[in-house]
Structures are given as structure tokens and as C-alpha cells.
């Protein structure tokens, strides 16, 4: 039996009087690879915020596995806009910043931390850019740097917020391959509006539209989405969904 990483029980979250998530029951186990889908404003990002502790639930319980609480916690790949890419930091600085949580108040990096950063940068295919400033990188390269920051602490749970938004076509397949490899050592929760593309890579779905419906399969139909009250359009659903559904 796989270990449960966190559990939400009848959890609700709101911004002021505006209830965004209501009575959510949700469990994530190690090695899960869950695509979080749903309409805009349906609460996908809010779900991540609650897991990250950025938003306190107004009702319900959220319990974490001991290892997540004490150990490496959670890796997080936000939508691109949060970091200022003109800020004078190098690729290596950004990857190292993923260790901040372990360092507490004073973030002094040891040689082994630096080696670890080099190793991650190598693994992500960016070794020649280690000391480059961020504004010299392409969108896909930036994506990889931020992924590096999210995984340098060896988290048990990785949260990805719309990673498809700034992946360049060359890197897209590579990116999902990388996630597949990472999935061997961490559970992944990936928010996306692009159901077609992600369905080829994830294991199960969670449909979020105020309520959360867990769908224990990577195959999902329009009828099921309707039943989940999750109004997103699936164009078609063939044998190889990601090639069939690719935008033209």
C-alpha cells in the first residue's frame, strides 16, 4: 500500500465571502501523477495555495504525512510570472534557492549543496548556462531552471501550476519525459487547462470546479466531465490522445 502524503477532509477555502473550494475530500499517495483540471476560476490554483500553506482553509482538515512536514516538504513550480527575470541572479542561484526551506534564517550553501545544484542543472540539460543571468534564457530554459529549483530539495510531492504555458515545442516532450522520471521518486500534482496534452502523461485526474471529483484513470470523456460538473471541452478521445488532441 502506497503511503498517503496528505489528506483533505471536507475542506473549504475562500477569498473573503467568495467560496472557491467547498467540501473537498482528496488524498494524494506517493507515486501519484494527478492532472488537476477544471475551468478558469474553478479553484485549481487555490487548491495548490492551500496545499502550500499560502491560504488557510476556512473549514475542514488538511493533514500531511510526517515526512512532508519534517523533511523536504513540497516542490513547487509556479506560473512563470512570480520571479523577476531581470533580477541579477544566475541560473545556479535560482536552483540553489530551492534549498532555502532547509536552511532556515541563514541560507549559507555548502560545497555539497553547490554540487547538487550543478548535478540538477546538468540533469536538466543546462550546464553551459550555469552562471548566466535569467534574461538570457528562452521560455523553455527558464521553465527548466524553475523546475530545478523545485526539485533540488528532493521533495516527496511536486506541484506544477500550468507548466504547459511556457514550454517551447522542442522541450515539451522532453519536459514530460523528465516528469515521468521524477515521478519515480515523488508524487506530482499538475494543474493544467490543456486536458488533451496532459492526459498522455498523467495517471489520474482531479476535476476541480468548486468541488473536487477524483477520477482514477487517465482516460476521461465529455460525459464524465459533465457528470463532475467540470465544463471543459474535450475535442476527441482517440487511441493516442496527445497526438489526436494536439492543437492545429
Amino acid at each position, binding site marked *: 500500500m502506497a503511503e498517503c502524503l496528505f489528506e483533505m477532509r471536507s475542506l473549504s477555502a475562500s477569498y473573503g465571502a467568495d467560496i472557491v473550494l467547498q467540501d473537498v475530500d482528496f488524498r494524494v499517495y506517493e507515486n501519484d501523477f494527478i492532472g488537476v483540471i477544471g475551468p478558469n476560476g474553478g479553484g485549481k490554483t487555490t487548491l495548490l495555495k492551500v496545499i*502550500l*500553506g*499560502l491560504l488557510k482553509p476556512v473549514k475542514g482538515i488538511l493533514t500531511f504525512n510526517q515526512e512532508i512536514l519534517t523533511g523536504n*516538504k*513540497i516542490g*513547487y513550480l*509556479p506560473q512563470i510570472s*512570480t*520571479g*523577476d527575470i531581470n*533580477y*541579477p*541572479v*544566475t541560473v545556479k*542561484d*535560482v536552483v*540553489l*534557492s*530551492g534549498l*532555502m*526551506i532547509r*536552511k532556515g*534564517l*541563514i*541560507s*549559507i*550553501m555548502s560545497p555539497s549543496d553547490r554540487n547538487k545544484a550543478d548535478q540538477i542543472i546538468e540533469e536538466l540539460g543546462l550546464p553551459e548556462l550555469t*552562471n548566466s*543571468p535569467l534574461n538570457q534564457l528562452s521560455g523553455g530554459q527558464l521553465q527548466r531552471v524553475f523546475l530545478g*529549483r523545485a526539485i533540488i530539495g528532493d521533495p516527496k510531492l511536486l506541484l506544477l501550476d500550468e507548466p504547459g504555458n511556457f514550454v517551447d515545442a522542442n522541450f515539451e516532450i522532453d519536459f514530460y519525459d523528465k516528469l515521468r522520471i521524477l515521478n519515480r521518486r515523488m508524487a506530482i500534482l499538475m494543474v493544467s487547462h490543456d486536458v488533451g496534452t496532459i492526459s498522455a502523461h498523467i495517471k489520474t485526474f482531479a476535476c476541480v470546479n468548486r468541488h473536487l471529483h477524483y477520477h482514477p484513470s487517465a482516460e476521461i470523456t465529455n460525459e464524465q466531465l459533465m457528470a463532475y460538473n467540470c465544463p471543459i471541452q474535450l475535442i476527441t478521445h482517440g487511441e493516442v490522445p496527445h497526438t489526436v488532441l494536439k492543437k492545429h
Partner: protein
Amino acid sequence: MEESILQYEFIIKGLLGSIFASITAGLAGTYIVSKRMVFLSGGITHASFGGIGIGYFTGINPVLGAAVFSILSALGVEYLSVKQKIREDSAIGILWAFGMAIGIIFIYLTPGYTPNLMSYLFGSILTVTSADIIALGVMSVILILYFGIFYRTILYISFDEVFARTYSPYVDVFKYITTSLIALTIVLNIRMAGVVLVISLLTIPPNIAMIFTKSYFNIVIWSVAAAFIGTAAGYAISFFAGIPTGATIIFTLVLIWLIAKILSQITNKVKQENNRNI
């Protein structure tokens, strides 16, 4: 004899003042330029004039008044923009002029003539006291220790605050401490460059540094060096030419920036030509 003692004192004052101003301005300046807080810092500076006015009126040390005003205005901008949802640049604009207004009213109400007013507005080495120099020296030590010990934490928070928040519970603590230290740095440097000009003392050196380097740490080092050259040369020129110190320092710094910019463009051109020839 007396003249040479005066000259000696002036040189020491100028030299120490330049060193401490450069260290504080370089460290604080790199932070505000990287974080795009230049306008906020300008607002803090001008708002602190209110404290100078109240200091004159009540007989309290004007620098102390300015320090209180600068920190209150820094926190005030944060309060107005985050809690009251006023646009940040508008909040800065309001406090900027409000501080100046208070300053002018209280100076007007102060009986008698206020001889040092011009030195607060535009900076003057002649009115800089030993206490001012010592205060700047202490501030230099505090800033070196603070940025030295917490270097990476400060860097990560100012690079990506949203992300840092998911990883560290100390984000707000660091933000408030850093902003307060920057407000104090500005106030202490007002004696050197004046309310109107001090923001350039913080802003120009990092921009000179950024022509040559892109790493935060190197920008700090280069900024301190550039600020020192600018302030020391500005002092010397202002002394011999008998013109205001603050204005001369800023003029010298802009000149250095301009020369550096032109030089870097020429070397880039040459490099491109060479690459093409290969």
C-alpha cells in the same frame, strides 16, 4: 597653522564620509535598484523632510526626526497599498509631497532663521558633523553584517517573494527589516547629498556596476567602488571649485556612468567586429 588643521579635518571628514557613504549607498542601492524600488526610495527620502521640519521646530535633532519619518513613510506606503488597496505609486506620491509639506510648514513656523536648511535639501560637507560620520560608520557595519549573514535569504526573497513565501515564514520580517535599514541609510546620507539628490547616490552606482557585471554580489562590490570614486572626486572638486557638494557628487557619478556606458558600447562593437572577421 589654524588653516592646515581645518584642512586636515576637512580631508578626514571627506574621506571617511566618502567611504561610509559608498558602503551604505552601494549595499542599499543594489537592493533598491534590483528590486525596482527606486521610486519608493525617492518617496521615503522626500517624506523624511517632514521629520527635519519637526526637528527644527521642536529642537530635536533633525536627523532623528527624518529617521522616524522615513521609516513611518516606508511602512505607510506598504500599509496604504496592501491594506487600503491604493495603487503603490499613488501612495508614494501622496506621502512624498505630504512629508515635504509638513517640513515646509514647520520650518516656516520655526522662529528665526534656519541656516542649515539648504544643506538638508542639497547636502553640504561643511555642515556634516563628526556625529554624522560616526552614524554612517555604524550603519556601514550594520549593513555589511546584515547583508553578509543573510545574503542568500535576502536575495531569494527579493528575487521571487511569492516563491519564498512557500518556503520561508520569515519573508515579511526580512522585508520590513531591509526596508527600515534602507530608510535609515537614506536619511544618514541626506547629510552628504541632500534630500533632493540622495536618491541618485543610491541609484547611479549600481547602474554603473550593471554595465560590467550581472551577478548581485559583484554589483554590490562595483557599486561601492563606483560610489567611492564619485563621492571622493565630487568632494574634492566641490571644495576646490567652491560649489555645492551634493550636486557635484551626483554630477561626477553621472559622468562616470556616461563614460562607462560609452566604453562598454565601443568594446561590444569591437568584439562584434572581431567575431565577424573570424
